[in-house]
């Protein structure tokens, strides 16, 4: 019976902590008492991490966010019970725990089952599965038979920004309501259409969906490469360069036409013309050489 009282005491304590924070912060003592010590009928999922700023662990912070999402989804779901708890141990608060478990990397996710010892599959394969909350939830479902539906806090920034932008435009239009000629200015429209087209043709949508790095820094030599070596992928910097080149060629074509049709004096027009053809040829050949570098086996220069 003393075991039972101890157990109920522990569960009550855990529930109390969990009601305050969905991820219970633990140090060495708490860990030993509530996770390691025997009478226990609940599973604990622990993230071992190093969140102190001096540790400079960027991955830990991202993993922590996902873990919080997971824990909150569990904490505020209707199926919330005292079967599963989420906890975290920071290296700077419980380094003895790290030593005890013989662990030398963070973040690590471990599952301590309610019965028996942790097995191999109770260590989450971070390298393979990544730390997305959905993946973690699948792992949890696998280990504890508790299904957690991930509910991410909605991101209000996007719609808010859009609303703000629309309000700003509307306000501007209202302020300038006696002078709305700019709406009929073809150059403005043409320019914005061109911007959109150039953004799309330089592969910004790919960047948006895939989220590649801005550029790649070779860790051994320290050399920064802006162009991705394969034709299947690209860096953000690279798309900016391509956007610029495309824009330059377009501008060259427009200049060529302007030079022939405008009514400026002949010297200026000649300069425009030469500049136009120069832009077209220079930037197009440049673009071609980048393409050649990426697309192996392309025979033309």
């Amino acid at each position, binding site marked *: 019976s003393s075991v039972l009282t101890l157990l109920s005491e522990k569960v009550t304590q855990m529930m109390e902590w969990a009601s305050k924070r969905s991820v219970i912060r633990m140090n060495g003592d708490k860990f030993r008492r509530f996770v390691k010590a025997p009478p226990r009928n609940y599973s604990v999922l622990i993230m071992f991490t190093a969140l102190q700023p001096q540790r400079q662990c960027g991955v830990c912070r991202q993993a922590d966010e996902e873990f919080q999402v997971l824990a909150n989804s569990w904490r505020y779901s209707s199926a919330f019970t005292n079967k599963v708890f989420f906890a975290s141990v920071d290296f700077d608060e419980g380094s003895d725990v790290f030593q005890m478990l013989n662990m030398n990397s963070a973040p690590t996710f471990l599952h301590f089952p309610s019965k028996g010892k942790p097995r191999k599959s109770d260590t989450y394969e971070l390298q393979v599965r990544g730390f997305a909350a959905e993946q973690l939830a699948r792992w949890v479902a696998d280990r504890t038979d508790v299904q957690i539906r991930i509910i991410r806090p909605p991101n209000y920034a996007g719609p808010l920004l859009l609303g703000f932008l629309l309000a700003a435009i509307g306000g501007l239009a209202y302020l300038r309501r006696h002078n709305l000629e700019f709406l009929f200015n073809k150059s403005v429209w043409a320019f914005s259409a061109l911007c959109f087209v150039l953004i799309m043709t330089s592969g910004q949508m790919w960047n948006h969906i895939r989220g590649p790095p801005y550029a790649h820094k070779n860790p051994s030599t320290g050399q920064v490469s802006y162009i991705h070596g394969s034709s299947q992928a690209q860096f953000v910097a690279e798309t900016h360069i391509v956007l610029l080149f495309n*824009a330059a060629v377009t501008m060259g074509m427009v200049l060529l036409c302007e030079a022939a049709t405008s009514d400026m004096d002949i010297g200026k027009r000649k300069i425009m013309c030469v500049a136009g053809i120069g832009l077209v040829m220079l930037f197009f050949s440049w673009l071609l050489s980048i393409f050649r570098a990426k697309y192996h086996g392309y025979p033309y220069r």
Partner: protein
Amino acid sequence: MKSSPNKGVLLQYWLSGALGGWGGTSDGKHKASTNAGGSVHGNSRPGAAGGGGGKVGLSGGLTQPAGWQSLLSFSILFLACLAGFSSRLFAVIRFESIIHEFDPWFNYRSTHHLTTNGFYEFLNWFDERAWYPLGRIVGGTVYPGLMVTAGLIHYVLNLLHITVHIRDVCVFLAPVFSGLTAISTFLLTRELWNQGAGLLAACFIAIVPGYISRSVAGSFDNEGIAIFALQFTYYLWVKSVKTGSVFWTIGCCLSYFYMVSAWGGYVFIINLIPLHVFVLLLMQRYSRRVYIAYSTFYIVGLVLSMQIPFVGFQPIRTSEHMAAAGVFALLQAYAFLQYLKDRLTRQEFQTLFFLGVSLAAGMVFLTVIYLTYTGLYVRLLTCYAKIHIPIIASVSEHQPTTWVSFFFDLHILVCTFPAGLWFCIKNINDERVFVALYAISAVYFAGVMVRLMLTLTPVVCMLSAVAFSSVFEHYMGDDTKREKPPEKAEEGLGPNIKSIVTMLMLMLLMMFAVHCTWVTSNAYSSPSVVLASYNHDGTRNILDDFREAYYWLRQNTDEHARVMSWWDYGYQIAGMANRTTLVDNNTWNNSHIALVGKAMSSNESAAYQIMRSLDVDYVLIIFGGVIGYSGDDINKFLWMVRIAEGEHPKDIRESDYFTPQGEFRVDKAGSPTLLNCLMYKMSYYRFGEMQVRRGALTPPGFDRTRNAEIGNKDIKFKHLEEAFTSEHWLVRIYKVKKLDNREPLDHKLRSVVPKQKYTSKKVPLMLGGEFALQVWRDSFRFS
């Protein structure tokens, strides 16, 4: 041409704005000759044919500029069609007249069914040889335009006693339609800009890789004829907005009907045309012509489009079509207001106006919101790109587009078409609003998904043609311009600059033509049913393993035998081997595919239970380890696991197939689950005894695709036996043994049936889709 004596007449013609046409002439010839030469001889010599077209023009109508002009246009257009047709023949010349890839095999099979059994039989066709044991209602789940077109051509030719096989009609349909596309692009661009730009656009579209990729000879697919229908519908639409005549609009509706019958991409038209009308209203360019054109188009087009069984009632139900209905209502309201405006006093009208406008605005707003949140946006951004439903994500065409793809498919056009857009917007009119909207929407869709590059290509050709044509218009024919008005001699930029600019521009276009030929020849002309490999001395080996294996199936198995394979090969097995398949490229039933994936990724005894329950007689797999073909089933295997895991998460786990370090390895270090699963065993059965590269230092059982010595060389089968392996081991077929052949069992075990329930989870129907073997294309070398 420049030394022509009759300059006065020529001058008038030139100054009337058709000079771009002259520009079009010379480089139309360049491209035509380049491609015709390139396709036949395999090496391209730009500009080989000197001045053939020009001479024709000169001899014809020096006294009649109009006749001269039309003769010239006609010959350029003809040459463009010819160039387009011949540059699509690489595959036919290198290999033979054969249907390519995967989806075309299905189209071919149904066309064959159509020509042998008649149209109504085709519409009612229930295909019991696909998706065993479910079957597939073919007539109601295809866009029949392609099959009917090919069948009709076949019928007419046979009526004229030109007896061709339906296969040849199918193979050459797409190249023929590319010629028609060139003509309709010419017509459309002529309406938008001028004749010269039209000719240039026709030359561009004839050879641009972005379009060739879907229309080489043998690629008998919906897109091949749909782009023609798209361009022709747009031409007729622009024509009807310009004239406001019901005649053109009815033509437009008929063309739209053809488009609906041909390709699911008709949704693009039914959204773009209303958008055009809406923007015209916003720009206060409303006119009676627009009213007549759109009202007629919407009603007649709607009724016609609902005649296609596969489309049915979608046009009045789904959100993709709601924009058209909304704009129709808005247009009626607007026209009604205009009418009232003439009848009522100012005061009355203003009250009514505000009421009407607020109502209409609210309605349009709601429509747009509804559309954005349920339809296009969700479909294109969230579903295809972000949520990785494995079966959709596994198709390489559904990926977003990198800038390299843009450049690869469009070359110079991708940098110059914004200039054309600029000119169009600067000199705006009703139809240029249309082309600007076309460009902006198409470029967005092309950015989201690689396969939609196809809809972007025509507009890019048109706008680039506008840009080039406006440059040529000002920089060509300088001599004459300066001679005519001596008092304005200062106006010109000088002949030197002009000729330099012209030369450089022509050079760019020449580079474009060379690029197009190279891309067509190297990237888009492999049938993928027949593989070619090149030796060091440049000689070619043909690997005909696929057809060898399919023919073996056709000849040596029971007529009703059921063949299990991964879904990529379903259409080919049905088309070439004429055997029943379990899953195919029409991936409409995810749970069925997952079941096949589960069988492939389970161990032999578990797989045997699944295969028994599905009545499988043979299993067909693709194995590239002997020749280094990277598009084989082991490389696709993880997708099978993922799809299976999606439906059976308790039995299949992706992580089981990785090493503890998270690697996918087939050698000794690989995970034991992988080394004992059915797919692995079938791929590497008896491979461990094989010395692949003689003389080299590789051990037996060395997989050339994955560059590893396999980890499980001692493979024994209990329930399967090897039935056939093709010459280069590319296709391996196994026979599933009947129960009688098993070891003696007591009756208790016999009653064991698979206990798990196969839950089904519906995934939205995908529009066709095949595995592009791009990886292979880049890396495959045979030495």
